Every structure is written in C-alpha cells, then in structure tokens.
C-alpha cells in the first residue's frame, strides 16, 4: 500500500457546464507530499479537485486514488470546497458539523459513538475552534467557518486531503492555522493537495507544485518548477515577476 501513489490521473478530460475545463491531465502524486495546485482563475483547479472526489464525471481518462477507483476510495479522501455553499442559518453548531465528517466511519443508520465524538473534538482543537464548539455555524466569522470545515475534513481521518483555495478571504489566524496543519499532516504521512493563489509562500509551503492551465504545465519540486518561464506559461501574460536578490517573488496582476 505504501508504494501505491496517492493520486494517479491519466488523460483526464472533464467538462463543466458543457465546456472542457481540463484536458488530458496526467499526473502521479506519491504519498505523503504537500502539493500546491497553482494556476489562474479558470485554469480548472476546482474541476480537477472535484473530479478527484467523484463530484464530476470525467469525459475521458481515469482517476485512481491509492490504487482504487474513486468510488471505492471515498473513505480515504476528504475534500474542502472553496466556500462551502451551505445554508448558514441551518440549525447546527460547529461541533456537529465536525461530527458529520465521521460519517464514512460511522456508516449508514448507526449513531456516532463516543470515539467519534472524541475524534471530532480533537479535530476542533487542532484548528483552534474548541472554544466556539457550541456556536451556530452562521454566527462564526468567515475564517472560523473555514476552520470548522477543515476540522470536518480532518475528522474524516482521510489519507488524502483536497483543499480548494482555503486561503481566500480568511483572517491571518486561520491562514497560519492552515499552514501549521499542512506541516502536521505531512509529519503524519498524509497527502495534501491545496489549490492556492498565494504564490509568495508556494515555494516554501509545499513539497511539489502542480502548475495547471487546463492542461498540466509542470509538476515537480518548487526548486525545479517555480521558474519564470513556466509561471509565464501557466498564467499567460498575466503575471508580473519581481526579482529580489536571489529570491523570486511572483505577483499576480
């Protein structure tokens, strides 16, 4: 099991609302890596993530997670959408949302056990939200809501986590909590894929970068992939690169 890649995607083409959003994407991600998924708006980052959890059906191509087809790998994957489209007035408190992440372990019809509650609480604690555990979900700030959904993904105890733009519109505390989480997940040997716009930290926060613009521009360690030429190809002409001493800093227009 250790040798199987966490993600194997072959010739994947997925259409979204009738138009192909990603074409012929092939990539193999080994286990235990933190992968930054980078590309401009409309590059198909969300589409790729949604296809990986089976929310979108591919036109062509294959997805395997830990050597299994997506349908059989549900227990192994957790997905946090960019901005959860939920009813924020829903009568549910933070702790209960996190407990929902235990569903794949609890199974149909059965009730969550004490062990599930313990895991949920531990995940809330990891994102620093235990003090607000009994707050109704809509009464939390945007960053706090994002952290609750992260905790729910953690509670799934998945071996692969897919985070879609977790840094958009969150406060500094949440941002730090997420980066801290990435490090911890790697220590635990879990694989994380993060779609992000934050190029300034992409070089240090990730073990691999996947540059995507409908097709794969490059995939590899940041030192190899974070090159002006490749970034220009990813972003088209829409990127300004500033060279500061030895360090390159990318700024999106």
């Amino acid at each position, binding site marked *: 099991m250790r040798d199987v890649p966490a993600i194997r995607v072959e010739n994947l083409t997925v259409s979204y609302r009738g138009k192909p959003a990603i074409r012929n994407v092939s990539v193999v991600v080994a286990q235990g890596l933190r992968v930054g998924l980078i590309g401009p708006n409309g590059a198909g980052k969300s589409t790729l993530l949604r296809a990986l959890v089976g*929310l979108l059906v591919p036109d062509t191509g294959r997805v395997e997670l830990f050597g299994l087809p997506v349908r059989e790998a549900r227990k192994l*994957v957790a997905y946090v*959408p960019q901005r959860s489209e939920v*009813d924020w007035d*829903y*009568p*549910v408190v933070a702790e209960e949302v996190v407990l*929902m992440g235990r*569903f794949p372990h609890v199974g*149909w019809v059965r009730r969550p056990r004490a062990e599930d509650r313990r895991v949920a609480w531990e995940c809330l604690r990891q994102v620093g939200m235990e003090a607000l555990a009994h707050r109704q979900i809509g009464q939390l700030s945007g960053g706090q809501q994002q952290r609750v959904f992260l905790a729910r993904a953690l509670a799934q105890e998945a071996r692969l986590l897919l985070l879609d733009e977790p840094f958009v519109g969150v406060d500094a505390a949440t941002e730090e909590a997420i980066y801290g989480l990435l490090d911890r997940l790697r220590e635990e040997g879990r694989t994380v894929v993060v779609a992000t716009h934050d190029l300034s930290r992409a070089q240090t926060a990730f073990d691999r970068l996947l540059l995507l613009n409908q097709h794969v521009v490059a995939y590899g360690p940041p030192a190899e992939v974070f090159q002006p030429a490749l970034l220009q190809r990813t972003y088209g002409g829409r990127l300004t690169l500033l060279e500061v001493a030895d360090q390159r800093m990318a700024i999106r227009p």
Partner: protein
Amino acid sequence: MSLWELVFEPLQYTFMQRALMAALLVGSICAVLSCFLLVKRWALLGDAISHAVLPGVALAYLLGLPFFVGAVTTGILTALGISAVERHTRIKEDSAMGIVFTGAFALGFVLVSRIRSKAVDLFHILFGNVLGVSDSDLVLTAVTGAVVLGVVLLLYKELVLWTFDPVAAAAMGLPTGVLHYTLMFLLSLTIVASLQTVGIVLVVAMLITPGGVAFLLTDRMSRMLGLAVAVGVVSAVTGLYLSYYLNVASGATMVLVASVLFCLAVLLGPREGLVWEWTRRRRLAEERVAEDFLKQAYVLGPDGLALERVAERVGLPARQARQLLRRLQRAGLVRWDGSRVSLTEAGRARAVELVRSHRLWERYLVEQAGLSWAEVHAEAERLEHLSPTELAARLDEALGHPRRDPHGSPIPPEVAGAVPSVRLLDRAPGDRVEVREVEDEDPEVLRALEARGVRPGVRLEVVERAPGGLRVRCDGQEVWLDAHLAAAVYTHAEAAPKTDDGTSERRGL
C-alpha cells in the same frame, strides 16, 4: 365546568376519540417533516404536492380504487414532474412548482365537478373534517406515521448531512438522489395521511409552521425536531377542542393555533424575539439610571442625602426613585435610614469607578479627539457606562495619568483635597484667586466662560461686585460675568499668592 370536564366531556363521543388520535398523529408527523422542509426550503413543494393529490382522489373514485393509492400516485408524479421541468427546461424551481401543481389541481377540480357525487365531498378534501375520521382512516394515518418517523429516525444523520451540505454529502459517497426522493415520498405519504384531518389547503400550514416556530427557538436540529413535534401536537389538540366548543371548522382552527404559536415565537424567541430585545434594552437603560444615581450620590457629598435631591439630579420621578432605592439597597450599594440615603463601601467604589471613567473620557475627548470642553460632558455621560475598569486603565495610561479633567475636577483616585473650593460668587472685590473647577453640565455656560478666558488654572482678580454678576480681571482684561456664569466657577480656597508672573503657582491640571 372544571378543566377536567372540559377535557374529558367531549371524549365520551367515539368520533371525538378518533379525532383526538388523528390530531395527535397528524400534528407530530407533519411537524417532523416540517423541520426538513424548512431547512431544505421545500415549503412550496409541500404546497404543490398537497394540491396535486386532488386529481388522484378523483381518479381513484372513478376507478374504484382506495383514495390513498390515487393520492400517493399523483403526489409522487407531481414531485417527479417538477424535478423534470426544472432539470430539462430553463424554468427555475419555483415556477416549475407553480406550473405543475396548479395544472394538477385544476385537473382534479374538473374531475370532481364531473363526478357530482356525495361520496367525494370537495369541501372535506379541501379543508378536512377531523370529526369524520373513520377507523380505517386512523389506521392509515398511524401506519404512515410509523413509516415516516421510522425512516427519519433511521436516516436522521444522513438527512441532516445532506440537507446541510449536499456537496460534502456527495463527496462522502452519500446517494443524494435517493435521499431526495425518499424525502419527497415521505412528504407525499404525510400529506395523504393528513387529508382527512386538515385537508389539502391547510395541510401545508402544518407542514411549515411547527418547523418555523421551532427554528426560531433553537440552534440545533435535534432540539428543533422535538420542539416542532410539541408545537404540532399542541396546535392540533388545542385546535380540535376549540373547534368542538366554538363549533367552528376544526382544520382551520388547528392552523390558527399554530399561527398564534408562531407569532408568540417571533415576539418571545430567545435569539431574535422582539420582547426579549425590548427587555434587554430596557434593562440596559435601567442599569444606566442606577449608575447615575450612585454617581450623583457620590458627587453630591459623603453624608446622608435627601432622596429627592439625588433623584432630581438624575431626573427621576419620586416613585421610580423609591423603587430604584429599594433595588440598590437589596444590591448592598446604598443605605437608607428612612430619611437620608448614603453609599455603602461597594456603592462608593462603583461610583468612584464611574466618575473616574467619566472624567478620563472628558480628558481624552478634549486632548486626543479634539472636542471642545463644552461638548465632552454629554459624550462622557454615555461612555462612562460602557467602560469596564481595564478600559479606564488604558485611557489613564494613554493620557499619562492625568489628575484632573478639562473642567478642573479631580480624577479619582485623586481626591478633591482637604480644603474645599470657594464659589467665585462668594469672593470679595480685590481678591486674587485661581480657578479650580468649573461646572461642566451646561455647554452654553462653558462656551461663555471659554469666550471670556475663564478656565481651570487661570488667575482672576475680582474687580467689583454688582447686582446680577461680577466684574473680574482675567489675563489683563476686564470681563463681566453674569451671576449664572460666576456660579459655575469654583476657586482655590487659599488666596492665590499676589505675584504677577504667575510662575510660582501650581496649576490645577
């Protein structure tokens, strides 16, 4: 007639026993579903399905089938039809519902009018007749109830996950389509089972209102279900008895009771309840008045004071002043010996905090916010009530631990000093004095004094006293002070040293 008789007298009739059973069942089943309809925003779907039941009933009659079969069939067909229109055309969900259910309802109406039989009483189908519930109706309702409650209990966790976050549910591998149609099926069953009791038109109220009431009262789905059932049962049973005693339509009465409960929830609900909000504001206002009372009692003097005197300063009518006095006495903040009021140690401490925060704010507003000293008293009156001790400490720090406010009054723990101030009005011509404090409550007076250069720390020489005021020399100029202006000025008790350079004096601020 006793309450006992009121409750049990009607139950000697079999039809009332059956009606009560039906009311209990329908009230609770509809309530359980209402919670999910509310969070799923399916209220209109309930309305649609309930109307679409009519053609089913008519067709069942024409074909000689049980009403139940026809009703469930058309109910489910309508739900599917709405989904189909929504999915395959550009019509959105609300219009799709409107188009499909009105069509089905019209078809039912046409069929019923064609039948013209007493066996299908349109009025009863539309508005229900709980008093005409038969044993077989009751069994049907009970079975339906068992199915609905059973499914909801078993799939509670799944239904909550799916209704809260359909995307996450799908990503976790939940068959969302199956849940969607399960809920629709339960809805159709419930509507059909409720027909006899409340009728097509009113069943939708029982499918929305109890959930709505419960939603206003809690933050958790599990409690919402329990509360909704309570609301549904209370509405149905109360409505039944009211209709019996008042001899009015039972279904409509049940709905009316539910509506009344909803109004109560809007008014009294803990989160957004209007009454709650109102009392909260009132309590805040009362708190302010109480604090003002303590503060005035402190400022007016350490000895016992007449209640009227304090009340007048706070602007409180005598009766309310006595109530407030009793409240403060109970809280251990003031003493009352029957004629005079004085502060206890705790009351004094609270008052000192308020005075301190008030005077620090005045100072802050003048120095940092650039307000004129004439304006700051009113602002500080508001702010002092909202400033916890830590905030006052921060203000104090930021201002460099000032000892007096802009009007010359000491900021606690600075005290007024052993030597009392002397009113400028009581000074004699020829006295050279230093202004120590100025009354700060009337902005007009403050503006007038400022215009004449009179402020704390300034030295004055009284030139002459005349009826109606004083002439003083201030900064080498002679100015006239009306008695009401002079009355606001207090001076240091010891005559200021008679030097002209003024450097040897300690300034008040």
